[in-house]
């Protein structure tokens, strides 16, 4: 089975090559033209094909196996002992599936809303998809770093070219924040390379490191990952980036790029510097709780819907980091596995829900050209079907049981109660605060009398919008009602991880 041996390469390069071809064929700014139509059909075909390949990955993935699967390892730069080394386990597989699942939806959403250089726009998303999958699949630190940094470029362009009025400020902020964070990541990799003689991540994990070295490496990792998550107080780039990004950009940013941070902690920080992680666990827990409580309050007062959802994302990502870093607060392992699983589920679920929320705002924006809550009111009167979707996603965002939003939060709350009553106390405030900021927005946007002529003229969802939101709604409900398949995908890997992290390197 030649095909299966290169599955991950196909997943990475299919969209990248597809995107490059789109750029090569060139653009047609007339959205109605045949050529533009061909371009977006091609973009959709590539993204759907990538998704189908990832389905093969899911089917072929062995839940019970420990270690990496679908491994590819070829020499890349022999003189430096760098490898083109790919593989997936239960931690990266769900995130790769999330990426391939969301990207076609983004292509459909942007179908004819992008008037300016549509082919390049679609190409940027396809290339971005490949690079993100590359991050999740890379097992060689240098390869990881290349994908990690390369990923910034398409996103930089998406916001910078197709963004809103203050897009230059937002892109610079986004780029500098994430880039500065990542530079130290490279330094840490080089140090580890010097210690082990290769960029093999497993080599890093096995390398004996002093506590002092682990602390420094942890801080270097932290700067890179905390910015991506984003954690308080390095979060302020996110609301700005979201506000200026086009709808598709926001969806990818919230749904997948934010997961890079959480993934980095799980894949690199915890296993490579377990003692360093333990040393800083208290601080990480504190920052996570601040993210949940402080950011939720901030979200409450937002006037711009995209900012509100961006802040909501930060608060929800607090669950991820909390779930990961309560690992050392238990006597046994059960709480640790529950916490990490909760954090992982939260990442996937947040990908679906926040993506859907940004799509909802996009639907509104396409009609009224405003993101201000005050510009709306009574939308449910003119767009009842849309309102039903938005209420569903808002409820999911408030963590209603039966939706995916509940699953991870529940697990993290239960695990953190075991760790410390007060962790659970503070983190559970999201039940109140999350519902408050989300549903208050729903009240002001959807309910009430029709607020103005623009709202009165709004047309309900077209079939494309309906399809995308329906697909997301069904996934949110399925994951909420039956999360077992997702959890089974991860559980062996997470148990292994907890066991590995529990072994001190000192």
């Amino acid at each position, binding site marked *: 089975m030649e095909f299966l041996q290169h599955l991950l390469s196909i997943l990475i390069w299919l969209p990248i090559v597809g995107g490059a071809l789109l750029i090569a064929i060139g653009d047609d700014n007339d959205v109605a033209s045949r050529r533009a139509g061909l371009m977006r059909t091609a973009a959709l075909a590539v993204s759907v094909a990538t998704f189908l390949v990832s389905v093969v990955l899911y089917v072929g993935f062995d839940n019970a196996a420990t270690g990496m699967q679908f491994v590819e390892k070829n020499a890349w730069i022999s003189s430096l002992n760098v490898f083109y080394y790919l593989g997936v386990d239960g931690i990266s597989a769900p995130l790769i599936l999330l990426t391939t699942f969301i990207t076609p939806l983004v292509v459909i959403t942007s179908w004819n809303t992008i008037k300016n250089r549509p082919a390049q726009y679609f190409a940027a998303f396809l290339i971005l998809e490949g690079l993100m999958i590359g991050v999740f699949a890379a097992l060689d630190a240098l390869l990881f770093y290349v994908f990690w940094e390369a990923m910034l470029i398409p996103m930089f362009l998406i916001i910078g070219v197709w963004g809103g009025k203050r897009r230059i400020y937002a892109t610079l902020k986004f780029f500098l924040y994430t880039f500065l964070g990542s530079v130290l990541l490279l330094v840490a990799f080089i140090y580890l390379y010097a210690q082990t003689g290769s960029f093999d991540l497993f080599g890093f994990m096995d390398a004996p490191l002093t506590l002092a070295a682990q602390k420094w490496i942890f801080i270097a990792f932290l700067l890179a990952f905390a910015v991506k998550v984003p954690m308080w107080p390095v979060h302020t*780039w996110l609301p700005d980036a979201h506000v200026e990004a086009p709808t598709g950009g926001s969806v990818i940013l919230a749904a997948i790029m934010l997961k890079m941070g959480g993934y980095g902690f799980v894949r690199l920080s915890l296993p490579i510097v377990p003692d360093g992680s333990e040393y800083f666990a208290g601080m990480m827990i504190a920052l996570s709780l601040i993210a949940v409580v402080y950011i939720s309050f901030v979200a409450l007062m937002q006037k711009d819907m995209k900012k509100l959802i961006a802040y909501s994302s930060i608060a929800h990502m607090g669950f991820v980091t909390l779930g990961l870093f309560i690992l050392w607060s238990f006597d046994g392992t*059960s709480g640790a596995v529950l916490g990490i699983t909760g954090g992982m589920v939260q990442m996937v679920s947040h990908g679906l829900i926040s993506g859907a929320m940004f799509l909802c705002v996009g639907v509104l924006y396409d009609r009224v050209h405003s993101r201000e809550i005050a510009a709306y009111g009574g939308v449910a009167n003119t767009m009842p079907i849309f309102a039903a979707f938005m209420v569903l996603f808002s*409820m999911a965002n408030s963590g209603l049981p039966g939706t995916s939003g509940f699953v991870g939060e*529940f697990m993290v709350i239960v695990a953190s*109660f075991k760790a410390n009553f007060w962790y659970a106390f503070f983190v*559970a*405030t999201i039940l109140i*605060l999350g519902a408050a900021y989300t549903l208050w927005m729903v*009240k002001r946007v959807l309910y009430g*009398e029709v607020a103005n002529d623009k709202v009165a003229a709004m047309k309900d969802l077209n079939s494309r919008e309906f399809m995308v939101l329906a697909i997301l709604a069904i996934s949110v409900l399925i994951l909420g009602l039956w999360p077992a398949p997702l959890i089974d995908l991860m559980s062996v890997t997470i148990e292994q991880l907890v066991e590995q992290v529990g072994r001190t390197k000192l």
Partner: protein
Amino acid sequence: MYSYYLTIVLAPLAAAIVAGLAGKQIGRAASHWVTIAGVGISCILSLVVLKNMFWGGAGSENISVYTWAVIDGLHMEVGFLVDRLTALMMCVVTFVSLMVHIYTIGYMREDPGYQRFFSYISLFTFAMLMLVMSNNFLQLFFGWEAVGLVSYLLIGFWLKKETAIFANLKAFLVNRVGDFGFILGIAGVVMFTGSLDYATVFSSADSIAAQNIEVFPGAPWNAMTLICILLFIGAMGKSAQAPLHVWLPDSMEGPTPISALIHAATMVTAGIFMVARMSPLFELSTTALAVVIVIGSITAFFMGLLGIVQNDIKRVIAYSTLSQLGYMTVALGASAYSAAIFHLMTHAFFKALLFLAAGSVIIALHHEQDIRKMGGIRKYMPITYWTSLVGSLALIGFPGSSGFFSKDLLIEAVKDSHWQGQGAVYWIAYLSVLLGVFVTALYSFRMFFLVFHGKERMDAETKTHLHETPAVVTVPLILLAIPSAIIGWFTVGPVLFGDYFGDSVFVVAGHDVIGEHLAATWHGSLGLLTHALMTPVFWLAASGVFVAWFLYLKRPDIPETMKTKFSGIYNLLDRKYYFDDLWIKGFAAGGRGIGQFLWQKGDELLIDGLMVNGTAKAVGRMAGVMRQIQTGYLYTYAFAMIIGLTALLSWLIWLR
């Protein structure tokens, strides 16, 4: 029976999905038929289940339906525990729901959201059944939140109405405050037992009670007390106990059928049900029981008082509901779980009846809800009148009615529950429920007299159209009036004294006030009835009715003068003890203030202004300084080079 249970739960869900997604296509009539069929099937099968339990001797069943997730030994499942407690709740829920479904055909006839409404109430029935039939905490929480969701959707059903969409947000958020406690309680259960399954948790109850948890360093609390109080905070939200009661009166902004179904008969009793279900836990913490009884007492008495000054027909009944829920909570705190559930059942019938009757009056008067604009309706609406009378008499505990049996024995149980030697708590509770009887009679019959008797205060236009409502409205009234009147007679014996609940409710020896005290003097329904005339309960109720008659029919001038004379007390009651202000001006406004502060001062000023953009500016300024050096003139560079060389050489020569 497995297929029965699945059908009972899924029939309303399927109906809700059909009416909700395809309502427009299948039309109005088909929508109400499909939902009525769904709930009807559930109701009939629930009655079969109850019959099998009661007469057929069927035991309780604990069945797993599917595994939700398994993480490192923690099994999270969806499943059913059907025992005698559950069976009773299933019948109450599906029967009242069925009545409300039928009634809705008449009440919502002209509403454009007809199909949506039927979809919601069927969905509610599904959620409520999931809640009561659950065999684990996870599914309980699912049902708990799902009924909250439907309640939110239904209170805001008329989504153009500003008061309605304010009320539904308020209801959801106040409930979430309760759920905050509830989920922490569930987390506590998992921490100490490693399981979410009722059976496992209950069987390890003793070990929880034997452990301590240090919430505050140096102050160990009993784990069971902490867990039970946290769980009870959830019950306080859902069952609207003070101070989390503020959402219930406002929820009256929703259509009347759901006030009957959700905010009187079923959802608000979920908290009562939950505590009874958790009796194996609560019984092991007398501290938690004391908290329960105190909160219940406060709610029972003080919320009843508010009913006296309300003028909106539905709000009077809403405060009555609060007060009656307080009664049930007091019974829970006194370990008289069966009395609480028994009162829950009779209350479900007569309170649903009262709401639906009020709705009948409201539609007859073209959506007028102010009782000051009613009066003398008796002769126009005889069926509504007589059924309302039945409901009101049952509410005040008129001898022989269903409410009489449940309330009288509830009060007796509280009176006899000396168990913990907590004198003050016990006296507060007993006084509250006793004096509450007078208050109940007063507000109930104030409303009854003002609506049905006395001067006709509506305008002439309304009066010409005033007539009895159609059969779809009156038939449910009659069908609810029958159990309200008579169900107490033949159920009180078996339910309270015949050990109906068996092992579905657990009472620690020494706490069992009904089995150990009341049973000794129990001589059948008739005995209780003859005995009733000599109890203070009866005379308090009778004097309440009399005072209502005197003040509101005979001498209506007196309440008006009292209003001005005792304006302080009147204002206190009229403003509902300022609880709304506490929540809205206190917590809600406070939260927004904190949010504004953290956003403007924290994010914008400190982080973005000072740290991020400040760094950028500092870099810019530094670069500005550095740029001065890069002049582009050769002599500048040459000069710098010479200085550099000099410095380097001097260092090499002298300092090394």
